[in-house]
């Protein structure tokens, strides 16, 4: 029997005992897609913070350094690196070093960084992480970032208020931060008053920028772990498609991921409606209601390999 070599990825994110955010959201879909995921947990919490009550501990800088030292001691190597929510600037800075270390051994490895800082004008990390994110991005080793509109604005120090400023933003990311792939997961612009758009932009080896957007149904914010799931599926698709002939592999990747995400959110909503016996309207509620909003990642386990593309991309 021959066993194909497997792709390896290091995912540094939160862990929750109950529910699906951070590594609990990212790991299973990646494993279903055949990735050997090394799971480094940056926190060990009972549940995500949206429940209103949470217990657990965060990793210290020394513990993180120690764990990574342990991994190096046994000679682990990675084809990809996935990093998400990191609220502490010292930890973030060290994760930047981990990224450098992995890229220096395997320059062709793929690093997706989700610069989780806040949403809709609200910052939920310490301001001290902002310059660290900028420094990491200026290092030029990150292959894909997946900010939301607010996070993109923070990183660039200007507001995205129109198609024009959006284009400027993408150009800045490509040129100043030397990023090959940018996906702005949700963006609302006056030109599209009734829609949320997902923007993806890619720079070719001869410095041409290809930017597209998808109109997506508004992803309701009472679900948590959505961004973590999105970035895990995206890194799988980009890794798979980036060496294909298609110059627009990012569009294909994002379309597939959006299609899967939309089905998972529908399934989760349907489940929550059946369990609670009513249409879901508000985000806050009792712990028992919150539980019904956990992504149905296990029930949707047959979806992760789907290559269906149901969204239309438009040139920006």
């Amino acid at each position: 029997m021959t066993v194909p070599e497997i792709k390896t990825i290091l995912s540094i994110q939160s862990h929750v005992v109950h529910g699906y955010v951070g590594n609990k959201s990212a790991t299973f879909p990646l494993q279903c897609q055949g990735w050997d995921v090394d799971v480094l947990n940056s926190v060990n919490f009972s549940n995500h913070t949206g429940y209103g009550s949470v217990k657990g501990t965060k990793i210290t800088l020394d513990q993180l350094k120690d764990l990574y030292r342990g991994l190096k001691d046994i000679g682990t190597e990675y084809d990809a690196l996935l990093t998400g929510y990191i609220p502490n600037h010292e930890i973030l800075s060290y994760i930047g070093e981990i990224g450098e270390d992995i890229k220096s051994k395997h320059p062709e490895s793929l690093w997706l960084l989700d610069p989780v800082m806040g949403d809709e004008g609200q910052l939920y990390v310490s301001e001290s992480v902002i310059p660290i994110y900028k420094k990491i991005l200026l290092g030029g080793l990150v292959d894909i970032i997946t900010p939301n509109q607010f996070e993109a604005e923070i990183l660039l120090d200007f507001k995205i208020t129109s198609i024009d400023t959006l284009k400027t933003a993408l150009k800045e990311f490509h040129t100043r931060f030397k990023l090959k792939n940018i996906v702005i997961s949700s963006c609302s612009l006056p030109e599209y008053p009734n829609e949320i758009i997902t923007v993806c932009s890619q720079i070719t080896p001869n410095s041409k920028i290809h930017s597209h957007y998808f109109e997506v149904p508004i992803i309701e914010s009472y679900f948590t772990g959505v961004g973590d799931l999105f970035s895990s599926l995206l890194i799988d698709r980009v890794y798979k498609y980036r060496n294909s002939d298609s110059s627009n592999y990012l569009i294909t990747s994002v379309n597939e991921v959006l299609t899967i995400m939309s089905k998972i959110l529908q399934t989760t909503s349907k489940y929550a409606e059946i369990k609670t016996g009513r249409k879901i309207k508000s985000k806050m509620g009792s712990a028992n209601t919150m539980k019904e909003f956990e992504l149905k990642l296990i029930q949707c386990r047959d979806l992760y390999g789907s290559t269906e593309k149901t969204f239309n991309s438009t040139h920006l």
Partner: protein
Amino acid sequence: MTTDFNSRKLLSIQSHVVHGYVGNRAATFPLQIRGLDVDVLNTVQFSNHPAYGRFKGTRLTEDELKELYEGLVNIDCEYDGILTGYIPSDEGLKAIGEICRDLIRKNPATKWFLDPVLGDNGKIYVSEGNIEIYKGILKSGLITLVTPNQLELEVLSESKVHDLASLKRAIDKFNDLYNIPNVVVTSVKFNDEDGYLYSAGSTRVSEKLYKSFYFKVPVINASFSGSGDLFSALLASDYFKGSEEQKSFTEETPLSELPLVHSLNEVISTVEKVLQLTYDHEINRYKSAGQNVPANLKINDLKVIQGKKYYLQYLEKYQAHSL
């Protein structure tokens, strides 16, 4: 698409390693593939398992364990099953014992699947106190399924196992002492029989009456870390595969009608597939590096992910014999 809106909920309390597949890392993925909603409580976070010879990381303190559990209680988590494995410290074991007792008190339908990890291959790696705590837990009447290996059966039943007759005596004594509805002795080796191992089970058919059985399976010539954790997880998942209704059994019930016989057969067959895949991969590695395969081959990481397809095959390759 799977539209199973009533996934079984399991709490798995085991170790976590960043790299490799032992403890929760061996248990979680196969359980998830089988459709169980697993709450993953990690008792340690190590870079890798200690059998590598070196590792880094931290263990949760007793207080941290209790606090995490308090967090779950605060959001009203309830479970169909709890799976517990290797817990080396006495305080940790006590704390986890209390957690499980509390969960079962809150929801008496909760099943506790316990792997009493004490040691292996003749070597005990927990304290005397730890063994005593385990004995107390086993006598509590709260355990649905227990999965000792040969050494653990010997220690817990205080009787030696060297052939089928002594295996039977040890299981009988174990049943006498602990009265647990389902017992699986994961692997037993007899000195005079190379190339095979035995896996035995015992299921309670009525008050104080048990039916015991065994499977004889060819052994794969290597040692694997994490295979016991994969084994106990798959066995626990099988418990939820059948219907809810409680069938009644008697001494006359044939082996073929006992659910544990099918579960054990299935798990032996599935784990064997994963071990074989892992073994073949390792042999290929030696071959392609132009190296000889060592006589005592020690394999660090099970191919848990590549084994994905096996978890849904529910193979039953072996023949059950009465013990």
